[in-house]
Every structure is written in C-alpha cells, then in structure tokens.
C-alpha cells in the first residue's frame, strides 16, 4: 500500500491537450475520486497512472518508486474497467486467478486466494461460470475480485458502476466503499457523477479541460468551491448564478430586478474592489422563499414547481433569470405567483467574472 504522486504530467494528443500539467497526491489507503465532465481527461490521467498511456511529460510515483516508463505489468496495480473487461473465454475462477497466474503464484495458493476473494464478494457459487452467463452486477463483482485478489498497491477504477442500473449502483457503491475501507488500499476512482463522487470520496479532485480545478474533502468542496466551475459542478441541483453589479456607494449588489444590501463581512472582502460586474452564486438549498415581502428581499415569480415528495423544487424568475430553490412539500404556491427570496448572507458566493475565482475562497479556508 502506498501513496501515488503525479508531478506535472502533461498529455498531448494531436489537437487536444488532454492533461495540462497535473500535479496531485493520492494519499495512502484513501479513496480519491477524480470527477469532472465528459472529456476532461479523467480516464487519460487514470490510464497514465496505470501505464496504459505514456505521458508526454512529467513524472509518476507509486510509493517511492518512479513508474513512468515502466510497463503496466510491473507497476503492481489493479484496474476495474467500465466494461469490466472480463476474459470471455475463462471461467470466473480463471478470471480471478489470472493476475496470480501471471505473476507465477503457486497453484495451491492461487486456489486459496481465489476462493477467499470469492467469499468476500459472495460469488462462490459462480466460480464455474463463464462471463456471458453472468448478470451485470455479478460481472462487476468478478471484476472487483480480479482486482483485489493480488493485493496490489493501488486500485484504479474507471467508472466501474456506470453500467449498472440505478438501484444496483447505489448498493454496489456502498459495498465498494466498505470493501475499500476494509482493505485499506489506495484507490483512485473515476466518475463523472458528482453524487457518486461525494458519497464515495475521502478526497475529491475536480477536473475540467485537462486541468485540476480544486482538491479537497467532499464537504469542503461543497462549502467552499474555488471557482464558478467547481461551484456549478458540485451539488445537485447546481448552484444558481446571477450576474450583478457591485455598487460600493450603495454598499449593495444591483441585480436585474433587485438590490441586495451587503453586510459588513462582504463589504470588508470587497473593500479594494471598484464598482463593476460580479457573479453572484447561491445554492438552491440556501434560498428561503417567502410569500410576503419584507426588507432586503428579492422579488421573484414562480415559474415551475417540481414536487419531490420531501420538498418542492421551485424554479423562480427574477427578471429574465431563472433560479432554483427548495420549499417545504406542503407549501401552497401557484404558477406566476409573486414570492420573495431571502439569500442567507453566509451562504452567498461572489466570483470574479474574468477569472471566475471565488472572492471568499481564501477567507473561508
């Protein structure tokens, strides 16, 4: 078991910079999730660590050992593929035994370890089947078995759950987390599903367009996103963004249809800033919707209501802008009805429109 360290890794394809100077650490024994939208380079980074892709430049360490330039079969890693990539001509037993046979383990030990692995994953009764006789969930377990059987230094997983149906995915997610904690093997997990990332991760790495956007614990990223991208990516439904004008004279933000007076904390943060455009961010769960007006509130009108059972997800309009907010399930509202929104000041985010960086990021850390 060991830490994985990636240093200034770049990967250039003919016309795409798939990885742009990636530096990050995957701590020993932890489950680190690489998350980001499609095409952001997650798979590329994972395969670079596996040795299936050679980086254009940079260095990769597993433990104390520098591994770039070393072929994958000498890296002592295990990988779970989205397609499972089970060997179709081998039984489940042979599939799980394959990594051990490849590394010349004695026969009786192979048998012992495969059976033990199958027991952990509860697939003992499937050992004689061929992959095509398995369900998706069963194949998933076999793929996991093949990864854990040789006790590698690192697990690499590329969207391992995305071929399962929604229910099974949640079950396997929990099992995977449990298994990983039990085994304590450094794990790098790739997904584009932020909910999956949040529930699984000890540490999250958010990527976009080949660059790391932010690294941290899931709740940290939720609470204190570094930029507009992370703020919009983490959390569901995503954070609302409104373009506003900062007016130092009025000590307020001027919106399309409203004026929001700033408290002392924000005024302090913005004290060196000239008047100009800012991006205001507010999470749906931090908006309070009230049926009658009171001072400092933002007027809006109800546009769409989605009954979720526990609460209602509301789309409201402020001028041309749409915002999403939650109200309790029993709230009586009508389409087009006028409402007032209260933004909790501590849940407010402001971003620079040029750099898209959060203005309160430093302070909140």
């Amino acid at each position, binding site marked *: 078991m060991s830490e994985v360290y990636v240093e200034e890794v770049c990967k250039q394809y003919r016309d795409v910079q798939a990885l742009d100077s990636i530096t990050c650490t995957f701590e020993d024994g932890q489950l680190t999730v690489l998350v980001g939208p499609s095409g952001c380079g997650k798979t590329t980074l994972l395969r670079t660590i596996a040795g299936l892709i050679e980086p254009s430049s940079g260095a990769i360490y597993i433990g104390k050992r520098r591994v770039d330039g070393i072929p994958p*079969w000498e890296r002592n890693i295990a990988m779970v593929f989205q397609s499972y990539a089970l060997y179709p001509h081998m039984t489940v037993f042979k599939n799980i035994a394959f*990594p051990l046979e490849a590394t010349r383990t004695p026969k009786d030990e192979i048998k012992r370890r495969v059976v033990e692995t199958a027991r952990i994953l509860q697939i003992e009764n499937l050992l004689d089947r061929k992959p095509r006789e398995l369900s998706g969930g069963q194949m998933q377990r076999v793929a996991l078995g093949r990864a854990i059987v040789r006790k590698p230094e690192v697990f690499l997983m590329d969207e391992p759950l995305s071929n399962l149906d929604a229910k099974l995915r949640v079950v396997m997610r929990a099992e995977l987390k449990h298994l990983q904690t039990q085994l304590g093997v450094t794990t790098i997990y790739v997904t584009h599903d932020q909910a999956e990332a949040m529930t699984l991760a000890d540490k999250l790495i958010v990527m976009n367009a080949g660059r790391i956007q932010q690294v941290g614990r899931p709740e940290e990223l939720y609470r204190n996103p570094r930029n507009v991208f992370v703020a919009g990516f983490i959390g569901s439904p995503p954070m609302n963004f409104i373009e506003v004008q900062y007016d130092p004279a009025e000590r307020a933000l001027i919106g399309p249809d409203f004026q929001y007076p700033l408290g002392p904390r924000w005024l302090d943060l913005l004290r060196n800033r000239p008047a100009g455009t800012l991006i205001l961010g507010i999470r749906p769960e931090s908006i309070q919707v009230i049926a009658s007006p009171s001072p400092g509130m933002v007027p809006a009108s109800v546009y769409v209501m989605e009954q979720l059972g526990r609460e209602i997800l509301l789309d409201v309009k402020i001028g041309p802008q749409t915002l999403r907010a939650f109200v309790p399930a029993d709230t009586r509202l009508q389409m087009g009805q006028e409402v007032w929104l209260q933004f909790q000041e501590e849940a407010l985010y402001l971003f620079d429109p040029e750099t898209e960086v959060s203005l309160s990021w430093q302070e909140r850390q």
Partner: protein
Amino acid sequence: MAVLFIIPALLFVTLFMYYPILQTFIYSLFSLHRTADWLHAQFVGLQNYIAVMKSEAFRGAFGFTLYYTVMTVFFELAIGLGMAIATFSVHPRLRGILRAVLVVPWAIPPIVSAMLWRWLFHADAGIFGYLLTATGLVSKPPAFLTDPTLAVHSIIVASVWKNASMMGILLLAGLASIPQDIYDAAKVDGARTWFRFRRVTLPLLLPTILVTVLFRSLWALRMFEESYGLTGGGPGTTTDTLSTFAYKYFFTYARFGVGSAYAMVIFAMVVMVAIVYVNRVKGNLRFKE
C-alpha cells in the same frame, strides 16, 4: 413477388454451377470423349472411378494435394499470424503502410503469381539460386522446379507467398475485434507480452483462426494454377494435383469421363471441409425475417 428479384441470380448460379455438377457426375459414369458426342458414349458405371483409384498417378496427386494443403495452410497461418500481430502492434502510421502492402499478393492472379515464381526459381538465372550460391550454401543453383522434392516445396513456397498475407488480413481483423479493454486488463493484471499472447490473444483469436484455416483449405484442396503454371505438374507427375489431372484429362487427353471422376473426388473433399466451414459460419447469415 419478391422472389422475382432473386430468381435471375439463382438461375445463373444454377445454370453455371449447380447443374454442371450433376452433369459432371453423369459424365463420370461414362466413357466419354469430348469430340465424340453422346452417340458414342458408353455407360461404364463406376469403372472410371475404379480405374482412377487404382492408378499410381491418382495416388500421387491425392497425396500431393493433401500434403500441399496441410503444408501451405500451416505455413500461411504461421506467417499470416506473425504478420497480423506485427501489423497490429506497430505504430499506426506503419500499420497503414503494412495493411496496404498485405493486399498486394492477394491482388495478383494465381497464374500470374506462378509465372512470377517460375522466374525467381529459374534454374540458371533465378534469384534464389543465385543468393544460395552467393552465400556459399550450395556450389551450384539447385534445380528448384525439376528436382521432385524441390519442385513440391517450391510450389508450396510460392503459394505461401501468395496467400499468407491474405490470411494476415483476416487474422488482423480478428485481432482488431478483440476489445482493447481486454488487452489492457491483462496488462495491468501483470501479464507480460508472451503470457498475454498465450493466455488471452490466442484463445480469443482461435475461432477466427479456425474459420480462416477452413476457408483456406477449401481453396488449397482444389489448387490448380500454381502447379499448372509453375511446373506443369512435373517433373513427371510429381506436382500434379487432382485439379491439374482433371484439367489434363478434360482438355489435353479429351477424356471427359476420367476427368470428371477426378473432379468428383475433388468435389467430395471440398464438400467435406465445406460442411464444417458452413456449419461454423452460417450463424452469420442472418437477415431481417
């Protein structure tokens, strides 16, 4: 109604392929001269077959046909597989070149390929003879096409050249149809190149290999042009195949009865392989409804 679309094709194929088989079979039961018409034909039952089976020449041709089939298919498979793997493994740019190159021997008509090899194997000025003497392996150029053993193997070499690359193309398609993820999984599972090849690539390629071998055998059993063009069956009849005999009986000796008996033997052999082959691949003959 729809049957009208398919009838012309069926008609042609029946007229020029299925019906003639029946005729050939009937010919084979007669003592029949091509110049002599049916008025002078004489029914001889299985006499032609018996005469053919008894002849030394038939046994020679039968043996050579089988030997040729086994040897060429084996070496074509070995070399084709090697070329397919090489093509699959090299950098994409080189792969493009190789794929194009592999098509070339296939595109050359068999009889032309035989002519070409006749020059390479030429007894006095052939390049192979020269290279062998120049490297000091032999003192004078071997008689590639006139020594019985050498002639047999020269024909095999020429055929392997002509067909190995086609095998390579088919096997390459088989290799490419194995999902990349499986190779990658084997790599991270710690399998080295040889282990991966033996335990993953080869078993997954086996169905393709089998079909390719059957397909090639189907053609090797009826081999004609290579012998006819390269040695004309010589020296003596050492490199005569069942097909060259059939052809010679038809058009040189003008004995259609005996020739047809030869043809029927080839047909029987081809049918045996074809049955196995058809059973393996007919699952792919699926069309909507």
